[in-house]
């Protein structure tokens, strides 16, 4: 009996040992003056988004810099990031937050909350920025100085449920935004009145939007999917004149293609996109290129950017979407210069 009680006492001691928690320490960073931020989406609903910073000069990458600098997680689905006046703004979609960070220390300097489901941010001025959203028929107007929401832009023919506004470009007093999820439009917003003043129908689901040096906007549709009640069609690349807000030229792809991620170089004279391979085209071209800029490397590319200074091309490989993704860096002529691991599902880039 005593032996049994002793055994129980010992077993209890062994069994109840506590688990160990690593509480985030705040690391001090001094980032190089220029470089590339990579927003890693992480897995939806697992809160494991992260931010990476790569210095092309030293070829050094630092991962999880937001977590390491701030001792807290970046959140759930880091969608995009932009830099304005020396501050980085990271849009964390399913955390309903936009973090403002110091570009050298990666420390948080402020945050915008009370958002529905933010996707992208665009600065109209130092006092006014727009934040697009999915699952909301409004674009949020914020004052970045106070981190406060100052108003909303109602988008026509959208409900909360069908709301989807994405990337923004500006031409003069007008901001243009592509509407993606079960949408087919580009909206035109007057930044003086914060109202939608016009819209332009393109193909099904325009995924991304850039503007070139000639004031021509480029968007690329994904064409929907087979079985979609919204329709399924061959995707297209569109050249749209920002001044007249009219489609100038449509470059169709084959049905079943899934082009995405139209990007532009620093000079604004070459566009790039993903369609299994990486493609490049002069903005003056009148037909799609025949051969890709880079051939697919036994994987599905997920993100794309072009160094605005060097013209080097960076491609993201999310691999199985459950591990650290890989970024490949190519010279402007397509030679592999470097490759490095970042976070889970590297989806978007931002140049410092």
């Amino acid at each position: 009996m005593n032996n049994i009680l002793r055994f129980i006492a010992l077993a209890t001691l062994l069994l109840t040992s506590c688990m160990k928690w690593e509480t985030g320490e705040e690391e001090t960073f001094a980032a190089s003056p220029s470089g590339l931020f990579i927003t890693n989406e992480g897995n939806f609903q697992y809160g494991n988004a992260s931010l990476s910073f790569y210095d092309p000069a030293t070829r050094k990458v630092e991962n999880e810099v937001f977590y390491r600098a701030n001792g807290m997680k970046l959140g759930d689905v880091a969608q995009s990031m932009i830099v304005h006046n020396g501050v980085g703004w990271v849009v964390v979609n399913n955390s309903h937050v936009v973090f403002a960070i110091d570009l050298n220390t990666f420390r948080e300097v402020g945050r915008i909350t009370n958002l529905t489901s933010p996707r992208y941010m665009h600065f109209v001025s130092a006092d006014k920025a727009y934040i697009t959203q999915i699952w909301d028929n409004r674009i949020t107007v914020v004052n970045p100085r106070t981190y406060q929401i100052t108003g909303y832009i109602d988008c026509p023919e959208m409900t909360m449920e069908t709301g989807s506004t994405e990337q923004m470009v500006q031409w003069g007093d007008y901001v243009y935004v592509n509407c993606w999820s079960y949408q087919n439009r580009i909206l035109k917003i007057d930044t003086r009145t914060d109202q939608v003043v016009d819209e332009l129908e393109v193909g099904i689901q325009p995924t991304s939007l850039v503007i070139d040096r000639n004031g021509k906007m480029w968007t690329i549709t994904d064409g929907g999917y087979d079985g979609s009640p919204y329709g399924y069609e061959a995707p297209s690349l569109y050249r749209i004149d920002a001044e007249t807000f009219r489609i100038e030229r449509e470059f169709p792809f084959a049905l079943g293609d899934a082009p995405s991620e139209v990007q532009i170089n620093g000079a604004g004279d070459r566009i790039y996109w993903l369609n299994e391979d990486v493609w490049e085209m002069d903005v003056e071209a009148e037909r799609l290129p025949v051969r890709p800029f880079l051939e697919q490397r036994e994987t599905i590319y997920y993100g794309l950017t072009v160094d605005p200074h060097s013209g080097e091309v960076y491609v993201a490989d999310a691999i199985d979407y459950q591990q650290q993704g890989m970024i490949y860096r190519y010279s402007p002529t397509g030679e592999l210069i470097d490759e490095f691991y970042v976070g889970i599902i590297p989806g978007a880039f931002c140049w410092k």
Partner: protein
Amino acid sequence: MMRRFFYILVVALCLAHVVQAQDDVRRNIAIKEVTVFGQRPMKDIGVQRTRIDSAVLKENVSLSMADVLAFNSSIFVKSYGRATLSTVAFRGTSPSHTQVTWNGMKINSPMLGMTDFSMIPSYFIDDASLLHGTSSVNETGGGLGGAVRLSTKPAQADGFGLQYVQGVGSFKTFDEFLRLTYGDDHWQLSTRAVYSSSPNDYKYRNRDKKENIYDDEMNIIGSYYPTERNRSGSYKDLHLLQEVYYNTGRGDRFGLNAWYINSNRELQMLTTDYGEASDFDNRQREHTFRGVLSWDHLRSDWKLAAKAGYIHTWMAYDYERDPGNGIMQTMTRSRSRINTIYAQADGEYYLDKWLFTASVTAHQHMVESRDKNIILQQGNKAVVGYDTNRMELSSSLSAKWRPSDRVGVSAVLREELFGDTFSPLIPALFVDGVISERGNIMAKASVSRNYRFPTLNDLYFLPGGNPDLKPERGWTYDVGLSFAVGREGVYSLSGSASWFDSYVSDWILWLPTTKGFFSPRNVKDVHAYGVELQSSLDVALSPSVQLSLDGTYSWTPSRNEGEPMSPADKSVGKQLPYVPEHTATVTGRLSWRTWSLLYKWNYYSERYTMSSNDLSLSGRLPTYYMNNITLEKGFSLPWADLSLKCAINNLFDEEYLSVLSRPMPGINYEFFLGITPKWKR
């Protein structure tokens, strides 16, 4: 709240002592006789089965089967929170590789493939068995990890009976249980109801976010980890179970089981969510009815059984937000409706040293899934979703042979038809034999091939469903040893060890596409192997003191052995994410006269959150140990039996996570009062 519970408990126990009647209700459970090898049922030849004790199932009314399995078996329970989705997985496989039957009818969601064990109150289950790996082929196909067999049984009531249990716990949790029974020589009737509700707003330290302190110019001058409450986690679950059994007494038994669930649960906000809980409503509602009619026809050397059943499930998922005008507006509205018709026929025939069985099971699923409302290009409205039907037929034949008391051999052949696709033949072979009569040492071995068909969402979900998916395929090998010793009324000690090795190929994973949605593909080959240990000890320490100890341990490496998905893929050869390599449980129960003390402990080793097993800051979930304790006292009054119980969960107030970004509760308490009136005869 906690202090008040203790106060109530102490006062109640003191008062009860005063009024306690002479005839103490002995809480001791008789120490069972050791099963001698010669008495083993032929159906169990070579089978690796864990039977969950009925005392464990009836431990307390607030428990779901997820809670029971987490502390009393070696299988991995992945819980997204308290009263939140909880899935179970055997041996390093996925939850959809666990087939679950209730009174013979498969209750895995045909859309998702898995079963939410947090939706099964353990008080509704009278018999629960885990069939590990190969052993599941006796019951059903598709159990690449194994099968969980749940059933109800006649209450063996004599006349009218009533039992009522009231639970009151932390976070304003209320659990009510009522059972009415009636029985005579032929009829057994039972009605059970459970209602559980809680705002479930437990406090936890949020280490994933920080609150900032600002100066007047909005500069951050300080920050801290906030202590938050679990936001948007409330639940209200009602379960009703009606059973009617009729026994002719001449070898025919009829049964009716009808189970109704009405669940309304919020989906908790992530630790990394900066939204205001009052601005969002994220909710899942479910109405499910499951009914089974059964007939058993028993004769001395043969048996026939037939079952018919029906399942209706209506599920609603709504994610709403108040855009600022005080009116909640829909962001996501999805609905699904599943109707399943079930039929089964079984036959058994004993011939000397042989047992032959045959079984045919049919499940006809009719599914409507409505996932998103959209506005078409022409301006009219439409819904994204799918409607489909699928017939799932499974038939099996088996021959079991026991040439001598010491040896048994069993062969099972199963064939399945899902829609218009036949599975290849699913064979399973089992052998067992007595190695030593002293200690009842037995060896078991089995091997099986198995297949799991894609779920309806895998095939048809919009967007992403992939009609070209192949079934997942697997081979499993099992070898085990077991022993049992004891003396009736004094002690019993039993244990088993088994080694398993299984290969699953064409494992289905949902991966994003370049179009921004996910789509399933047959991508991985997985090699899961390891060891499962179980032991059980019952000792009568003195005539009034009894001790039971049960322990399980499993070591389950589950490795991705597929082809790399790209040259950069680091996941090959690594442990699957969210599958712990080590799990263990220990349950100790000490009974003295009318007192009973229960101690429960479980352990999950570190789990990786990435397929590459990277040790980044969020790349792993720390090891955790959970300790729960329950003290119970029974009273026998002239008019009723009473039971008072106090359960303390997470005794050491551990901060832990089962899934990333899902907070779990710290120490919490629940107090139960059970009344079973004694009717005058």
